[in-house]
């Protein structure tokens, strides 16, 4: 544990990257997953087929393979997929191609699960709600955005919370793909302080548990606040 206490700045910086990876990927996968869910339940057959194929492909692929694709494959096909154009520095944090590739992998992966969570929510909204919305003349986008999705999101909060908790922990894969996140820091610490392995494991496990607890707490607040009266 001393190893962590003596290097608490590195510990916090590691979790800083973890949090950034999580927040950015969560936001992107929420948007992407929602669009996918809308495509899956929508009236356009081509989009329905595309969205189901996307979900089937991405959900059945291990996350590490998606990471490998972005780190070692995608850039060979399309140069912009090397993400060399990303170069942002905020305080002690550097967001470059490695961070971006990790966000791309995490977002694409999680969006498939977000899509399925929201689709489950959409299915829980009675058909009559959508019919009533169509009956007052709302177009498909309005039916979704005004009536179906707001209700679907409420029903989706518990499965979405699970998806995001998984995402939070999945960020650790980025540790072996060029991002010095908490998991990478933990490996560094255990390498340097082989005698304190257990203390280091516990310190980092507690860090992840703390972050997961925050996500769970937010989820339960939303669930309570959005409960249909």
């Amino acid at each position, binding site marked *: 544990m001393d190893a962590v206490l003596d290097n608490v700045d590195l510990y916090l910086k590691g979790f800083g990257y973890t949090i950034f990876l999580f927040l950015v990927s969560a936001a992107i996968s929420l948007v992407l997953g929602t669009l996918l869910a809308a495509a899956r339940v929508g009236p356009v057959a081509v989009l329905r087929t595309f969205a189901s194929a996307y979900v089937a492909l991405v959900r059945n692929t291990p996350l590490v393979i998606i990471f490998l694709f972005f780190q070692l494959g995608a850039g060979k096909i399309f140069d912009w997929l090397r993400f060399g154009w990303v170069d942002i520095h905020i305080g002690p944090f550097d967001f470059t191609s490695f961070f971006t590739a990790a966000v791309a992998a995490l977002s694409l992966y999680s969006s498939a699960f977000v899509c399925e969570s929201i689709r489950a929510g959409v299915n829980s909204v009675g058909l009559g709600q959508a019919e009533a919305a169509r009956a007052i003349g709302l177009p498909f986008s309005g039916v979704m955005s005004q009536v179906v999705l707001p209700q679907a999101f409420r029903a989706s909060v518990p499965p979405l919370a699970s998806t995001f908790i998984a995402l939070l922990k999945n960020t650790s894969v980025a540790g*072996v793909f060029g991002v010095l996140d908490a998991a*990478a820091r933990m490996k560094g610490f255990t390498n*340097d302080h082989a005698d304190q392995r257990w203390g280091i494991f516990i310190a980092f496990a507690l860090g992840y548990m703390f972050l997961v607890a925050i996500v769970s707490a937010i989820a339960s607040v939303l669930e309570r606040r959005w409960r249909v009266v």
Partner: protein
Amino acid sequence: MRLIRTKAVVAGLGLALSLVACGDAGSDSEGADVEVKEDAASEFDDGTRMKELADAGKVKIGVKFDQPGLGFKDAADDIPTGFDVEMAKILAADLGIAEDEVEWIETISDNREPFLQDGTVDLVLASYSINEERRAVVGQAGPYLVTGQQLLVPEDSDVESTDDLQGKEVCSVTGSTSLDNAEAEGMKPVGFDTYSECVEKVLDGTVEAMTTDGTILAGYAAQNEGELKVVGEEFSEENIGVGYSKDHPEMCQWIVDTITQAHEDGLYDDAFKATLGPSGVDTPELPEMDACES
């Protein structure tokens, strides 16, 4: 900690028993450069780990599989190659065990101590830097090689030293000492699972350089001749040693003696020339090895 140690002892005992059960010491298959000792078991005192291993005719050695020149094995190979592996063969041969009787197990930076503690391997020769923290949990004999960290850059790169890479991204293996050193030198470390992924990133220009022990880099430079080169002064000193379990402190002196003897016989130099020599690294003197405790 106590819990783990107890577990390691239990695991070690179990292992020893199973090894004894295997029987059949010695082997008549010839090593490439190293002469396998006949009737090795008789040379060790009863109760020593060396005697047990020699009796069993089996030893499990952890090496790296992804470091050309030190420890490298691709899917087609049965036996890994590299300087660490040659050193391992010398030790095995002294136990009367030929290279094809050795169980070669891949170890990565993360699992070397746990593998030694739980008996998954008997010895570790995996570019294993000696340091105090490691010596608190496992035994480390040596060093048998001193290396320093350098930079591997594309052939046409202008980078000459770490000064040229201040604030720049430099690749190494996640959780390695090299990565920490790079950070301490003012570079921005980028960690991957294996060195080969870093080489990939240097070749495609995503990062300007990768860094780790010069010997490892030399191996990659040789593998990618004309595309990559090793540059810069060594900016760290790594003392590479042999890892063994703390449960068998008697192994330390045996390792030191065996390697010293191999050096006197010229086997050490031969091993170096055969493995790291082609990368253009001069054969060093055998470093003065640390004294073994009692």
